């Protein structure tokens, strides 16, 4: 009975964490206080439920208990008469929420929390970790691992961000129509960054990371339920599904890295690809192109290889040009150069790479990997070897390192 209560409490906490925090913090915008109140409520649940039985609505129970904790904490801070008014109001709201708590998995409240976590007033590098912790309830240690910093450093950043939310008065609200698209870009970037972390964690050295792809896709779906007419939201989900569909083909049975153009398309998840295709088409009907739809379109071109057997590189050039217009990142520019290499040859592609900002590319692994490949194409073995060595030094995946080492060997033997 005790372990049942424990399991139920843990499951409810995990599933409803973001929603509960959002409810609790909505008035005061005080996320740390909400977290304390909720963890006390959880502790109480673990004491009380084994004796009295698991409640019919465990989520509502936790919410009420946490609200009571918040009121008590507030009472210790203020001595004024309006405290009793606050208490009455809070209890009323808690009763209201008891019913809401039964409803939709991803409520308006969690969406508001998502916008708060990715508010421009918060340092952008904290958006994704903050979102992962407060909206998905992922623990700080796991998040710290994914970002390759110490748990202490991560905790500090998260605490600082939450204090900023409270002290600066960052609202828990869905932004007004005029700024919604701008703010949405921040939310989508945070979700995609979370997906990217999971994508990079494929080699299993960080098992927790691969779980992030599932979380990111879940968030993407939930966001689409709340904002079904936003084409970039649909575009993001489409993009993640195109990538996720290729998961099984990315490594062979021995864990060897398989580059995209050599992947066995039979191993691609056809159901996911079909859904990605449908979503991309739906986004298109809403007639507002954007960077995530563009990236999804790029993935769609790659995915077409399963039907036609070839890749339409010219279409990719057009799409990458459009992407660079909208989102001129290093990633899009390096990928663009790689595609130019396929169509126009290595020389113009290298010229593009040479045009990139020196400081930015110095530690950007894909730049060196692509550069090595292009120089090898031109027969410049020594320069290619140097580029491959740089790429190897910047790689954090053993499988990719092995793959690049093979390329390096090939280039060295050629010049020997």
């Amino acid at each position, binding site marked *: 009975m005790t372990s049942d209560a424990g399991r139920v409490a843990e499951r409810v906490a995990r599933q409803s964490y973001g929603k509960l925090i959002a409810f609790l913090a909505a008035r005061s915008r005080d996320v740390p206080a909400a977290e304390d109140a909720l963890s006390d409520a959880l502790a109480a649940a673990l004491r009380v439920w084994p004796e009295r039985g698991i409640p019919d609505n465990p989520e509502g129970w936790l919410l009420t208990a946490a609200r009571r904790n918040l009121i008590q904490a507030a009472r210790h*801070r*203020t001595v004024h008469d309006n405290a009793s008014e606050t208490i009455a109001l809070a209890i009323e709201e808690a009763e209201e929420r008891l019913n809401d708590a039964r409803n939709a998995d991803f409520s308006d409240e969690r969406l508001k929390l998502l916008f708060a976590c990715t*508010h421009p*007033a918060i340092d952008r590098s904290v958006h994704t970790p903050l979102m992962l912790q407060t909206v998905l309830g992922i623990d700080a240690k796991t998040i710290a691992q994914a970002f390759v910093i110490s748990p202490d450093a991560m905790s500090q950043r998260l605490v600082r961000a939450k204090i900023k939310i409270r*002290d*600066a*008065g*960052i*609202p828990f*609200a869905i*932004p*007004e129509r005029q*700024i919604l698209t701008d703010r949405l870009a921040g939310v989508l970037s945070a979700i995609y960054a979370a997906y990217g972390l999971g994508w990079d964690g494929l080699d299993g050295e960080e098992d927790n990371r691969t779980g992030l792809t599932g979380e990111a896709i879940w968030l993407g779906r939930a966001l689409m339920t709340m904002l079904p007419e936003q084409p970039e939201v649909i575009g993001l989900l489409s993009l993640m599904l195109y990538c996720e569909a290729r998961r099984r083909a990315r490594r062979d049975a021995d864990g060897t890295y398989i580059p995209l153009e050599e992947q066995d398309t039979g191993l691609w998840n056809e159901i996911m690809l079909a859904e990605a295709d449908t979503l991309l088409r739906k986004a298109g009907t809403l007639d507002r192109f954007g960077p995530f739809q563009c990236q999804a379109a790029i993935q769609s071109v790659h995915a077409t290889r399963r039907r036609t057997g070839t890749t339409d590189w010219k279409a990719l050039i057009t799409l990458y040009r459009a992407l660079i217009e909208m989102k001129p990142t290093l990633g899009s520019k390096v990928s663009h150069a790689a595609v130019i290499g396929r169509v126009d040859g290595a020389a113009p592609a290298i010229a593009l790479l040479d045009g990139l900002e020196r400081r930015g590319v110095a530690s950007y692994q894909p730049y060196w990997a692509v550069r090595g490949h292009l120089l090898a194409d031109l027969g410049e073995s020594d320069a290619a070897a140097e580029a491959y060595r740089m790429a190897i030094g910047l790689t954090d995946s053993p499988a990719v390192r092995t793959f690049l080492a093979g390329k390096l060997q090939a280039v060295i033997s050629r010049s020997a």
Partner: protein
Amino acid sequence: MQYALIIRESAEDFVRRNDPAYRDGWTAYTKALVQAGILTAGAGLTPPETGTIVRRKGEDHDVQDGPYPEGKEQLGGFYVIEVPDLDAALEWATRVPVSEWGSVEVRPRLQFA
């Protein structure tokens, strides 16, 4: 919540204050704040060269000719507005007629419980 909109201007901006078109922009903005009923306090300040810096030096004070050596932007003035949240404050901040070399810092007013 109350927020300060702290305005910084460049040296050229301070010169441009002589231009009625530049001044009119500020008058219009201030009026808009008043009409919205959200202006709690505010003041424009005279150019940085008119400032005097006072620092503590042990028991004494060190008094020097301004401006404060902050950088290219200098404090030009501030408004204190009463709005529901940061987004509302930011909306007003985007309307402040600073030039492309100026800036508006949005910071909550200290509240004592």
